[in-house]
């Protein structure tokens, strides 16, 4: 039977499946053996590692690496042996192992054929005491014999000369030592030395290259970096500068303790730099450690008496310590010095941004009399903006609105005219001009009209002044009120009935509405009411009470009159007189039968 394609495919598929399974099985079995193998290897690695760690801890030789070596043990550096010195044995596996075992087993550490999987460093143990001077002496004896009596002056060379050997990577550093000749003769013992001469400084140029002897001029002993020590000094100074920069960075970040550490490091490196101690003083000031700061300033000043900033900082430190007279001295000194010393760098000194309570000495303070400034919350800050806003609003408003606002404004004018004197007084206090006030008021109102706050009264065209006033007042925003609360005499159109207003500061009411409001506040407190009433001019009664008088209010007033006015012998006849002139007074009296 011929096998169909389909079946062929199936067979193939099965075949493949079986293959895959086999592969997998093979792999898994492989895995187990691999696992064991790799675990072995790992153990080996670990044991090796332990050995090296032990060896390293045993080695306490004086290594001639740089003092800034890595803190780790076991971190490797590249091989320091030049290639021609390395072992030339081929490193194939078996041999490698053999050699490894041999050298590692025997513990021979003088061969490079050990620890082949790692990099090696050559270290030399040297007895301390064989310094340069000793070497120089030895060289002298070796070359000129024992007969030459001399003493080498000083432990350090007086100069050195470096040059590179051409075509190699090597160089030579030649050290020159000064010695005092005491006697004896030169007897050449070193075969490589052919001749010797005693020459003067001028004759020296004939025999030696200019570069080599230029450096140590006999006449002028000091040349730059003659000795290694001086070189060290210079290097330290550089490092100190780096520390100073680091400290400044940390200071800017606000990390004062780290800045102090950096400055301290700098100071140990270079004690002659006044900037470091002055900067440290600054950082200490920030931390409020005034005594320490003062000491640092003293140090800075001892190093550089013309360092103006140090005076400033010492003054601040002393101020912090409450040594005021001394602080004053420092500040004065700073001022005088500042006139002498040129402008310091424009870059921001740490002093800017520090908030000292007083940094100006008394004689420099402003001589203007202190002026009490009222604290005011102003709704709209900018006059210009305001006017612009107003203009914009007006432009946008429709005609009817304009009419309404016009009418409102007219009513408004009436009010403002009647209490002009009051307003002026207010203005003096608040130092704001009339125009802005009214314009603000206008703006507020037009604002409101624009915003269509629908209050039934607003659309009323009723002529009662009081009701119109009422409606308008209701829509005044609160922003203008706080200003008024603080002034004793109000501008009166806009007082808001905030319960926090003490009765004592109740403004003189100009409208009945105001009166009503204030009455609500003071009605429980007869004395307050009495005070309030006193303020009101009797002639105003008619206006205040408008068309009607509330019986309750009338009663209260009469009680007040009885209690307080009589007791204080004040004349309240005009009050009563005017009361009667209030409309519908008679009506009220009738209704209230108790009078």
């Amino acid at each position, binding site marked *: 039977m011929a096998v169909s394609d389909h079946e062929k495919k199936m067979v*193939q*598929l099965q075949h*493949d499946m079986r*293959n*895959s399974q086999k*592969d*997998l099985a093979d*792999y*898994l079995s492989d*895995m*187990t053996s*691999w*696992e064991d193998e*790799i*675990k072995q*290897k*790992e153990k080996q*690695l*670990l044991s*090796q*590692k332990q050995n*090296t760690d032990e060896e390293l801890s045993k080695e306490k030789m004086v290594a001639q690496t740089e003092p800034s070596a*890595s*803190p*780790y043990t*076991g*971190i*490797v550096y590249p091989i320091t042996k030049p290639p021609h010195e390395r072992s030339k044995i081929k490193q194939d596996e078996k041999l490698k192992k053999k050699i490894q075992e041999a050298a590692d087993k025997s513990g021979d550490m003088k061969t490079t054929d050990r620890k082949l*999987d*790692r990099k090696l460093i050559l270290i030399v143990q040297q007895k301390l005491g064989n310094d340069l001077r000793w070497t120089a002496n030895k060289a002298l004896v070796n070359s000129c014999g024992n007969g030459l009596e001399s003493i080498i002056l000083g432990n350090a060379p007086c100069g050195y000369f470096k040059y590179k050997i051409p075509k190699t990577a090597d160089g030579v550093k030649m050290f020159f030592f000064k010695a005092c000749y005491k006697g004896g003769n030169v007897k050449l013992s070193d075969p490589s030395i052919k001749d010797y001469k005693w020459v003067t400084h001028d004759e020296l140029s004939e025999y030696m290259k200019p570069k080599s002897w230029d450096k140590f001029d006999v006449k002028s002993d000091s040349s730059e970096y003659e000795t290694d020590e001086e070189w060290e000094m210079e290097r330290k100074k550089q490092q100190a500068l780096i520390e100073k920069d680091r400290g400044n960075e940390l200071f800017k970040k606000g990390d004062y303790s780290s800045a102090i550490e950096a400055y301290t490091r700098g100071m140990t490196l270079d004690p002659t730099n006044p900037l470091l101690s002055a900067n440290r003083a600054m950082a200490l000031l920030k931390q409020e450690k005034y005594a320490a700061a003062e000491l640092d300033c003293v140090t800075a000043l001892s190093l550089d008496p013309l360092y103006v900033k140090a005076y400033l900082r010492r003054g601040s430190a002393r101020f912090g310590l409450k040594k005021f007279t001394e602080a004053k001295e420092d500040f004065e000194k700073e001022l005088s010095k500042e006139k002498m010393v040129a402008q310091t760098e424009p870059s921001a000194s740490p002093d800017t941004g520090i908030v000292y309570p007083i940094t100006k000495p008394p004689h420099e303070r402003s001589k203007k009399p202190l002026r009490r400034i009222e604290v005011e919350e102003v709704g709209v800050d900018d006059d210009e903006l305001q006017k612009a806003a107003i203009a914009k609003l007006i432009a946008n408003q429709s005609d009817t609105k304009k009419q309404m606002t016009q009418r409102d404004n007219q009513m408004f004018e009436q009010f403002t005219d009647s209490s002009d004197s009051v307003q002026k007084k207010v203005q003096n206090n608040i130092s704001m001009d009339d125009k802005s006030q009214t314009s603000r008021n206008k703006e507020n109102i037009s604002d409101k009209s624009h915003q269509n706050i629908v209050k039934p009264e607003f659309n009323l065209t009723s002529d009662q002044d009081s009701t119109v006033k009422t409606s308008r007042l209701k829509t005044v925003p609160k922003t203008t009120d706080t200003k008024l609360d603080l002034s004793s005499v109000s501008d009166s159109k806009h007082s808001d009935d905030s319960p926090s207003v003490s009765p004592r500061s109740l403004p003189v009411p100009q409208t009945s509405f105001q009166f009503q409001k204030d009455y609500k506040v003071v009605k429980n407190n007869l004395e307050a009411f009495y005070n309030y009433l006193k303020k009101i001019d009797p002639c105003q009664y008619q206006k205040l009470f408008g068309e009607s008088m509330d019986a309750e209010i009338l009663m209260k007033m009469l009680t007040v009159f009885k209690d307080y006015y009589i007791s204080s012998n004040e004349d309240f006849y005009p009050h009563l007189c005017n009361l009667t002139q209030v409309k519908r007074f008679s009506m009220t009296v009738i209704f209230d039968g108790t009078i």
Partner: protein
Amino acid sequence: MDKPQIILHVQKSVNYTLFDTKWIPQSAKFVALGNYARGTGAIQIYEMDHGDVKLVKEIEKSKSLKCGTFGASSLQQRYLATGDFEGKMQIWNLESPELPVYSAKGHKEIINAIDGVAGLGIGEGAPEIVTGSRDGAVKVWDPRQKNDPVATMEPGEGEDKRDCWAVAFGHAYTKEDRCVCSGYDNGDIKLFDLRNMSLRWETNVKNGVCGLEFDRKDISMNKLVATTLESKFFVYDMRTQHPTKGFASLTEKAHKSTVWGAKHLPSNRDVFMTLGGNGSLNLWKYSYPSKRVTEDKDGIETGVAGTLNLLQNTTLSTQPISSYDWCQAKEGLAVCSSFDQTIRVLIVTKLNRI
């Protein structure tokens, strides 16, 4: 049917969020990094044991760990370099993990990616570690230098800081040469040459770059795979750089979701595995074109991209597979972790026959 098979060998569920898994070189162990729900970092070491993994060591650290690499440590020491959520790069000796061997607060924000070079006998020159962080900076560290990085590549003052999502070392074929490639969340890929300390090449692939890998770190740059969001990844031929067009590349769509990374097979640099956001793995083979270099109309040499061939794919999980590592010691063995808090050890067969 000689296609390689991807087989799930062991599956292990853990009780913390996994971010990275790496094989410990020269061993049958791997380390898993992540963070516990309480916000502390987790390091767990597992060992392969006859068809199962057993937990050898469990270490808890104060800060969650995001990524780790053995790339810069020697075979002897096998120190793990990790980056944590606070921007600290630390190197641990797993035998004594109480205190780090090295610690540096390099970044202000989470270290998203870390890579090492010249350790483990791979690559020439000094061992170095590179970290890429959310603060936009890429810093190169030498474990012998305390506190300060050897090189920093960060955006200038006042410039936009884009999150760095991926970093990779490459081109470390001599002692002096080295390149760092970094990928950012806005699709930027920047290639820095550490020998000249310059930006050698940059491009933008429009989608955030999740993963970057050179096919080999220790050879002259050959290929670079960049995987991005929106299920795309790019393979760049790095042998020929055109002055304006840069490197030739091919684009491939896969996984229908974010491609989280690409990992090359240690024994074959043209085979790599891509990790998908839908929990799938794709095994690809890259074939070089007949001519890798041609001359364009101006006579300047340009590279030619090759072709990709999908060898095998499998879906292991519903959550993205965020990390994958081939075992250097055993071909075909790999460990991966996904966001469903499982570690999976996989076997890929028939790789020697590709």
